[in-house]
């Protein structure tokens, strides 16, 4: 593989995962803090809140996973490898 393409792919892969984890990290923190507030206010709704929280956390995590998939494609199945 062309060394420039290799270097660019590695940098792009790390940026893809790093940047993609920024937003979901903030979002997950926000959601978790609100869920804790909700449980503190209404401990009897514990189970429902936890279920909804896990589901929405997985949705947010999917965004990071998209970045990860792009990174994996760049590292292991690079279309520009030539």
């Amino acid at each position, binding site marked *: *593989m062309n060394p420039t393409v290799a270097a660019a792919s590695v940098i792009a892969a790390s940026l893809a995962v790093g940047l993609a984890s920024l937003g979901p990290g903030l979002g997950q923190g926000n959601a978790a803090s609100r869920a804790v507030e909700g449980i503190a206010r209404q401990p009897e709704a514990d189970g429902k809140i936890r279920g909804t929280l896990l589901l929405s956390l997985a949705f947010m995590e999917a965004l990071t*996973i998209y970045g990860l998939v792009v990174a*994996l494609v760049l590292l292991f199945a690079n279309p520009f490898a030539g």
Partner: protein
Amino acid sequence: MMINFAALEVGKHFYWHIGKLEVHGQVLIVTWIVIAVLVILSSLATRNLKRIPDGLQNFMEYALEFVQDVAKTAIGEREYRPWLPFVGTFFLFILVSNWLGALVPWKLITLPEGELAAPTSDINTTVALALLVSGLYFWAGISKKGLGYFARYVQPTPILLPINILEDFTKPLSLSFRLFGNILADELVVGVLVFLVPVFVPLPMMALGLFAGSIQALIFATLAATYIGEALEGHGEEEHGH
């Protein structure tokens, strides 16, 4: 350029040639093992049914009640029953695939190329599962409302038509990528840790992988049930109208 992460091989497959098709043999082998485990477990559990369940029968009844609960909360009390086998199969298949991929030391078995791993860490498996879900929720909607199902694309306003159509494409995309990415990421993380420190250190990550595997199975089943429930539910008026 390929870095050998402790013999972790991404993008290498054990190809079988069937006619003109090339299939990933390692995925099929593990899929068959998963199917065998599920069939053997359920036939053992139902062989000697007792009124007061114990042992395996008890466990399987708990699993059934769990998936029943998932389907019931997503689809609704009245209509969940016909869709329960589908949702339950998804949950059990994905759960057993994820856990078998993480728990069984597949590295001891060497293939000519590629390696045995969870079937869900191959994009083809997850795309197939996600497309099944897509086909099924269309079928659910059309079989219940006929062509009136497509009225939901222009509700509440026709302006949302492109977004509603786009949604049908993003649903399978996100379903498949989520499952595939999570499982492959777990395997990669464990692989990298094993490469750096071979003993003890990877254990917490492996436990996290088991947790993530079960959560992903639950998410997939819940989302599949939610999509079916969404397709089934009327906007209220249609059902009372005639």
